[in-house]
């Protein structure tokens, strides 16, 4: 698999990574019952907060995302993950809005997670890190927003697990959210999605280098397991049509099959590449914890089994977006959300965008997505009284 050198970059002291750090001293009461803290939140901002602090947009990242929305990733050097969306003159216009994105609790890009040192033991938390939920991630973000002195976020936006955080924000802190945009998301993780996550976790835990989670102490890395987890997950982010369009049955640098188990097909080579580069930038235990948080997410369950109850009193303006070829978070799940919001007569827009790019469409160049969001945010800005850029 990948070289032994690069994964260590993830685990070296990260103090010189760009961006801001907030140390939260007062412990956070987590859903699992643990009072956790002090802990660090690593976050990035773009644009300028206006005088009355009314132009802030919180971007919530997905499972393997991070706070580097619009600038290069400090490990891979790749451009930010939402440069299609965030920047001067773009939909999330940094000339008009103040963008905030924080690495989630349990993550591995600067916010406290299982690879960090537990002050109580002087060793990495590993599996002694408390099990966290999407609501815990949002609780941590709330601390950050309070620290920044922002009373009401103009918008909370995110795709996939980011969308789960958006929904959690709108349900838990309705008065602090003017507009909520969950993209390619759902109010709960489906059985099928839990199943895929379990495959990924088992791959990690079956890797002898995982060392029962203590791989940092053992100076090893479960790179093979994590790569397989990534490969399996990556298939779910694409559609059959997109895979076919991209690769078909084309062979990789050869004219005929090799009668063996090399990556004969381009699609195999592509997946192996996805897996091997992922381990350079992601911590295996973080992957376990964050996938678990998604599995546990069930917004209705948090509110007595009723999804409309979760949004009772929701004053935010919602824009729900799904993609036709997304089979990981299909349109039916977004529609369920729409119906729940209708039941409490919330202000909601819902658009299903036709694309063959699958779940990953929210990260890609989708002009219709941009137009829809641009129109929605403009309408909201008008209602909120935000001046044009």
């Amino acid at each position, binding site marked *: 698999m990948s070289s032994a050198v690069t994964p260590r970059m993830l685990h070296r002291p990260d103090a010189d990574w760009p961006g801001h750090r907030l140390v939260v001293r007062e412990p956070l009461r987590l859903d699992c019952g643990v009072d956790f803290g002090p802990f660090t939140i690593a976050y990035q901002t773009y644009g300028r907060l206006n005088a009355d602090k009314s132009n802030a947009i919180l971007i919530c990242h997905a499972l393997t995302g991070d706070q580097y929305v619009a600038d290069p990733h400090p490990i891979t050097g790749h451009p930010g993950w939402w440069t299609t969306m965030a920047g001067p003159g773009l939909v999330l216009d940094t000339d008009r809005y103040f963008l905030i994105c924080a690495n989630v609790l349990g993550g591995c890009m600067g916010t406290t997670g299982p690879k960090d040192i537990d002050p109580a033991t002087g060793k990495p938390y590993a599996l002694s890190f408390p099990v966290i939920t999407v609501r815990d991630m949002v609780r941590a973000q709330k601390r950050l927003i309070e620290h920044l002195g922002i009373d009401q976020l103009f918008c909370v936006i995110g795709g996939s697990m980011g969308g789960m955080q958006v929904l959690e924000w709108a349900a838990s802190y309705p008065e602090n959210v003017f507009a909520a945009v969950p993209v390619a998301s759902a109010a709960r993780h489906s059985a099928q999605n839990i199943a895929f996550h379990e495959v990924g976790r088992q791959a990690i835990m079956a890797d002898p280098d995982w060392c029962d989670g203590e791989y940092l102490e053992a100076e090893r890395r479960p790179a093979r397991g994590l790569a397989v987890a990534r490969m399996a997950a990556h298939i779910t982010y694409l559609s059959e049509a997109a895979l076919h369009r991209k690769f078909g049955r084309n062979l990789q640098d050869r004219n005929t099959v090799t009668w063996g188990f090399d990556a004969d097909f381009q699609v195999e080579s592509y997946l192996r590449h996805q897996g091997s580069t992922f381990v350079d930038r992601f911590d295996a235990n973080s992957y376990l914890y964050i996938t678990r948080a998604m599995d546990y997410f069930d917004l209705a369950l948090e509110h007595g089994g009723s999804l*409309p109850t979760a949004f009772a009193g929701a004053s935010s*303006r919602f*824009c*729900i977006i799904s993609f036709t070829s997304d089979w990981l978070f299909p349109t039916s799940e977004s*529609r369920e959300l*729409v*119906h*729940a919001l*209708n*039941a*409490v*007569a919330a*202000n*909601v*827009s*819902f*658009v*299903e*965008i*036709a694309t063959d790019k699958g779940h990953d469409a929210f990260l890609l160049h989708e002009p*219709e997505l941009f*137009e*829809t969001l*641009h*129109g*929605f945010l*403009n*309408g*909201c800005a*008008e209602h909120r009284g935000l001046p044009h850029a």
Partner: protein
Amino acid sequence: MSDAATVPLGYAAPETSTEARDRLRRDLRVIADMIEPAARVLDIGCGDGALLHYLASEKGVDARGVELSQHGVNACVTQGLSVIQGDADSDLDAYPAGAFDVVVLSQTLQATRQPRRVLETLMRIGKRAIVSFPNFGFWRIRLGLAFGGRMPMSPLLSHAWYDTPNIHLCTIRDFVALCDEIGVRIEKSVTLDRYGRPFALDPRGSLANLLAEQGVFVLTQRNGA
């Protein structure tokens, strides 16, 4: 309205006339004039959002919409309107009773799978409903079928029989009978001629059923509100 020729007998012209209003389709103008400022309105089958946009910008209405076509929904949301992709048959049930002051269903009833159920739902979620539909009893349609011998087509019913979305066409008298049957009160009705000009005739009379190309009805629950 300044143009006297467009003010037909028996119909009171609205007091205000704006450019924005003039740009609306004729039947939508009639509907727009029936809606109070600042009302909570749901427009089902809102198309590209022309009515909603007018109501929101000119009348300060809290405007929401439901539209089947992705193209229409995107056009609406891009304008900043709150519109969901859905249809009258399956996406109205979640709304609570009395959620809206007015529910508008313009030129859509005849394309629903269960018009009776849709009408009942409108009466549940709206304090009032405004329903407009093409009148299949219109004399040109009757003549077309009687003498042409083919399924009638008109500017309002412009699809061939084999690809029309209009699967539940009715006459004005059919519609009135359905309202009676399910206990819906007709608070007001306006009939429009083939040029979209409104005229006032008793919707229960056979003349309206013959002369109107379309009808616009304001409905309330018989027992209340």
